[in-house]
């Protein structure tokens, strides 16, 4: 008996499919799918024609925030975290565009980086700000200027994680609420961080850095602390996500 070519092809394909089905039934359960993606948005404040504050050494705030953003991006990328930045150079980016970038990235953490060396000598370390919007439940369509309201609770939790890491790094930290258009429009856990020079007392307590804003050691210490905090935040996020997945029927 002689088989025609099309019939032979169909028969072989059917055999192969049956074999795969049998193998799938006998194989052990596949490992859990890789954890959900984790994206961090770094927003280096100011830029272009907006220099921000003028620091005591003559440096503009925009330059320092960009340097910190680049340093932190490298640290996070080395730890396998996907990073989206609002600017990579001395470019002017308006507040709405910054929020647009963050919202399109669907990030799990958004950090707006600032720097200042004004105020009294006792005002030192890092200031963490969360949006002053009142917390609100999740909504399908959020108003642009108050989009952060649904995320404020998560933002407060993120600020707590950052606070712990910065304190662990020996820095002085204050927490406060603020009305900042850039983070009020973000649909992600968002925190504005203002880095200030470290007081002589804190800087001298076993640290090598002088605590000045332009000190590379101090910048590295801040970036390391923020990277450690974001790693911790990733673990918490995955744990929370896993809890939600298990709770689903």
């Amino acid at each position: 008996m002689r088989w025609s070519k099309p019939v032979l092809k169909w028969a072989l394909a059917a055999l192969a499919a049956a074999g795969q089905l049998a193998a799938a039934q006998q194989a052990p359960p596949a490992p859990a799918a890789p954890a959900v993606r984790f994206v961090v948005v770094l927003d280096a404040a100011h830029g272009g024609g907006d220099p921000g504050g003028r620091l005591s050494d003559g440096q503009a705030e925009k330059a320092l925030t960009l340097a910190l953003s680049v340093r932190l991006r490298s640290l996070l990328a080395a730890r396998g975290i996907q990073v989206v930045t609002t600017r990579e150079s001395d470019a002017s980016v308006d507040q709405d565009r910054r929020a647009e970038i963050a919202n399109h990235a669907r990030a799990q953490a958004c950090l707006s980086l600032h720097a200042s060396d004004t105020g009294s000598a006792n005002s030192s370390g890092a200031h963490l700000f969360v949006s002053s919007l009142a917390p609100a439940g999740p909504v399908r369509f959020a108003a642009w200027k108050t989009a952060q309201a649904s995320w404020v609770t998560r933002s407060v939790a993120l600020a707590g994680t950052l606070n712990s890491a910065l304190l662990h790094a020996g820095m002085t930290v204050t927490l406060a609420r603020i009305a900042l258009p850039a983070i009020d429009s973000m649909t992600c856990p968002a925190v504005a961080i203002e880095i200030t020079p470290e007081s002589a007392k804190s800087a001298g307590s076993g640290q090598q850095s002088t605590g000045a804003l332009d000190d590379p050691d101090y910048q590295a210490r801040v970036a390391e602390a923020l990277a450690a905090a974001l790693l911790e935040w990733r673990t918490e996020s995955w744990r929370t996500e896993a809890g939600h997945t298990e709770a689903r029927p």
Partner: protein
Amino acid sequence: MIPRYQAVLFIVLLVASVVMGVALWQLRERAHQRLLAGQDSAPTQAPEVAQAEQATLLVANDADGSLLTQVQSLPLPQDPGARARAVLGKLLDLYAAPDATHPIPGGANSIAQVFLMPVPGPDSSSSPDSAAKSPQSTGPELAVINLTGAFAATHPSGLETETLTVLSICGTLHANLPRVTQVRFLVDGQPRSTLAGHADLTRTYLTTDSVPSEGVHP
């Protein structure tokens, strides 16, 4: 014996002196009335002549990012707008002092004007027309603070320092004028996006957001 013509001349001169004296007295009275009328039309009452009262100031402290309540005795005019300006002037004088906990140059002259008006809303009783008819409104009020450009130009730049300035102004206004529930800012009479690069001046601030009970963080 005095000649007759001399007697007549003496009487004429005497009468002329009396008439001139009366005329001078009337002119003096008219000038005095004009002077008083000019003083009455002055736009504001000088705070120095007002009675000293207790004013509650919410003073910012950069050390821990808090607002501390401080009671000061200072002359306060009765007009609410002038009263608000006097209180805020005292607050900014504290910030301009050498040992300030929240140093900002400028002082009292940094407040150009303070305007008080009913809070705009759907309620017709708080419309500007009704406010014009009854200037002594009893509802919640919006304070519009006009800062000088020099104040904004010399204000230190930073998230914390600018936020503390705005919140301390809002809190101080509410502590002394409880009807003020909302505050907006102008700089040289014009809207401005930020105070010194950070604090948003385009929004309306609610004074309830900045009133601490005792030295709490904003």
